[in-house]
């Protein structure tokens, strides 16, 4: 083996300007990774009633499966919540606030909320620079007792403005999480 390496070395030496030795990059972190999606719902009638829905997948695509905490989130019936969604990349130290990038490119992004609990609605309350919905801030209203899911999708480069539905928005999906909800 040694001879081969030496020979190989001999070949490259003549081409030193074109070939560099392998750089040790110390392992590249996935800069665009989103590890954590936190939806915070604050009861408009009672600021102390805060429900936090968290999605975590610390090792990104592959590896361990993502985790929802709590597994099922409990909301009160006929209540209005102020919603705010926060994206983190927790592999950075300190964790990177991904919302900053979303806000910075608000015209290229939009959140879509699709509840499958009867009577539950989500209304986007913030806008991008062009006055189109963005969806970091929301108003969430619950109805009667029920269970189901809340699907949250962040679309990159959707058509804006759009008809407000996922199907009509186009673009590619950057985030898709499904929180389990129990309204009681």
């Amino acid at each position, binding site marked *: *083996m040694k001879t081969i390496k030496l020979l190989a070395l001999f070949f490259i030496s003549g081409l030193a300007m074109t070939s560099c030795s392998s750089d*040790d*990059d110390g392992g590249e972190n996935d800069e665009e990774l989103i590890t954590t999606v936190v939806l915070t719902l604050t009861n408009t009638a009672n600021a102390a009633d805060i429900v936090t829905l968290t999605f975590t997948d610390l090792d990104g695509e592959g590896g361990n499966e993502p985790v929802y905490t709590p597994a099922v989130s409990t909301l009160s019936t006929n209540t209005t919540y102020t919603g705010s969604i926060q994206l983190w990349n927790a592999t950075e130290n300190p964790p990177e606030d991904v919302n900053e*990038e979303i806000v910075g490119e608000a015209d290229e992004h939009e959140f879509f909320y699709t509840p499958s609990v009867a009577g539950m609605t989500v209304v986007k309350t913030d806008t991008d620079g062009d006055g189109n919905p963005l969806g970091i801030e929301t108003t969430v209203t619950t109805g009667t007792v029920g269970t189901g899911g809340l699907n949250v999708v962040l679309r990159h480069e959707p058509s804006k403005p759009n008809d407000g539905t996922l199907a009509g928005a186009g673009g590619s999906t*950057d985030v898709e999480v499904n929180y389990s909800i129990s309204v009681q």
Partner: protein
Amino acid sequence: MRFCAIIVLFAYFQVGFTQNCDSILLGELKDFHDNTPIVGATLFIKNLNKYVTSDENGKFKIENLCKGEITLVISHIACETKTVTYNIDGDVFKSVFLEHHLEQLNEVVVSANTKIDNTSIQRSLKKETIDDFSDKSLGDALNTISGVSSLNTGNTIVKPMIHGLHSSRLLIINNNVRLFDQEWGDEHAPNIDINAAGRIDVIKGANTLMYGSDAIGGLILIRSQNYAAKDSIFGTTSLSLNTNGWGGNINSEIVRTYENGLYGKLQASYRKFGDFESPEYQLSNTGLRSVNASARIGYKSFEKGFEAYYSFVDNEFGILRASHIGNVNDLVRAINSGEPQVIDDFSYDIDNPRQSILHHLGKVEAYKRFKGLGKLSVQYDFQINRRKEFDLRRGNRSNTPVIDLRLFTTSLQSNLKIDAYDNLKLNTGFLLRYQQNNAVSGTGVSPLIPDFDKYDVGAYVTGTYNLDLFTEVSAGFRYDFSRIEAEKRYRLADWNEIYNYDELFPEFESGTIEDSRILTFPEFSFHNFSASLGLTRHFSNDIDLFFNYGLASRMPNPSELFSDGLHHSAARIEIGLLTMQKEVANKFVMSIERNNQNFGFTVSPYYKYINDFIQLIPNGITTTVRGAFPVWEYNQINARIFGIDIDINKKISNFFSYNGSISLLQGDNLSDDIPLINMPATNFTNSITYYNEDLNQLSVGLRQKTVLQQNRYPDYNFFTFDPILQEDVFVDISSTPSAYTLVDFNSSINFKAFKTGNLNIAFNVSNLFNVSYRENLNRLRYFADELGRNFNIKLKLNY
């Protein structure tokens, strides 16, 4: 003429007392290879205007020579005429080497039937055919050969496929240098400028050992032209313009040759297209830009020669914008919608997603012939491939590539061709190769292919033997040792629990764990044995029979071992496995050929059995922050591929001729008893051409190509939960598109231009009826139709 040889002159010294006109020159002509005398060579003594001939012993005698110079012109059938001048001062003794292999030296272009080996089963594309594809890719040109298809990503990234096999299973040899350009990726097309090629051979059979042991699919040989050793300067400039994509190609080349054997060639081409269109919509972001240049300089004589070659390819390909999708629900949406999700107006801009690839190739080659032995050649080459892939990214990262790989390859190889025996020819040689992949840092994405160093050592011997005038056999053996040493970080969960590498490969662990990733140093060594056997038999009526058997083995490529990442265009995560073993193939190819202008044919059945065939197939679904993704994993199975390629040419009348071909292929995954993934469907072509030599070589033709639906495919369709619809939806990734028929029209005419040059004008229409269709072997077939009608004009000026 096999006696054609080097001539040795022996002048016998005689003591002469007079200085004038009584010297005697005795000579003897001998065969360069086996020292047999050359009979009947003509020697013209210029000064005396007198002829002598060598006798039955190859000897000759010239008497009564005066003091001073004597010039001999020695000629013999099939030998190049040689002129030598000696100073006669008393008696002299000189040895002269005569150049021979005239046919090799004197052709301006490579002659039509130079096979790499007389027993090899191959098809060729000549320069004229290559010129028709000046604004297309290598894959497009090869697609015209029966049994050759392509795996496409869109319409510009075209990967050749022989008998359903592609990527690392095909060896692409450019000017005697094996191309290494991250060819393991399905969406990576070979970085070849087709305009630099003089001739392209596709070797379907087994006689490929000189180039490597892993040509399971076959070999693609791109050769440059040979030039005659005469004082000349000539060139070609061609321009091609197209309506589909509103772009084209300009290519220019100039060649200078000298009588002493020196030659040089410069070539450059530029290609640019905007967005292409299908019959019904614009294919947004499918444009391309390509800048290529090559230079050759060399010296060629019978005894010795050298060549230096350098080529440069700079490609930028836009990738259909609508093919960038986020997760499997996006994929379902794309499949069900039937048309691209993004259709913009025509533009020349190449936005993300896109590929930007730079490829440098350089080589130096030298050869020398040795008396009574053969020809020894030595070649050194290097290649640098820099591949950058850009994707739609967040936060001002659009100019930061997601993939940035630099692959450096260098090799030293030597070949000794022993042709001293009449009936036996031997080739033997060795190869040393070093390869280094550098996943360039700064992408902000963990690299798809890690840093690695690879070492190869190989040696081979092949031989052909003439049993009799009509029968020739060949055999060969090759051994390769390969070692790969990589450096890669694995997610701890993958390393320990999911793939169990901590128990299988504890020796690769470095002990360093950062951010729940473990640094590892995987190392693998492979010993590959390969062999070939060939037989050719010539029958009357121009019929030849060929039979090839080949044993080929291939080590898993870096992609199959290490790849780990998300492919947006396929909404899939691709995983390579460290447990991959080498692939071993046994292949049998037969061919019955009749070379005849009036009625010729080739019937070529083949059968390949591949042990531990490595394939990439869907294996479950993983959930990520982007939603669900199918995971495609490499696995190994036993596979069988067999089929038949048939070509027919028939002259109908003086002006009309017919060509037809059909390729049938079946691929089976024997381990799971299902069809093999990504196999080309049955296809056939018919073309009819009118050609009139007297009418400015006018040629008008129609060509029809039909590709049937592939009904034999493995069903990897699955269901995924759609949270919006609150139900499982069907993900149809396996079903194949329906059959289609395309008709092309082509015409060309030649005019004289200047004194010696000529102008060729061609007008072509492809997809004449503007048919909407999708091709099973296009990775973007889920998103958009293939190209619609295109009008093309080509002007080619030879001067």
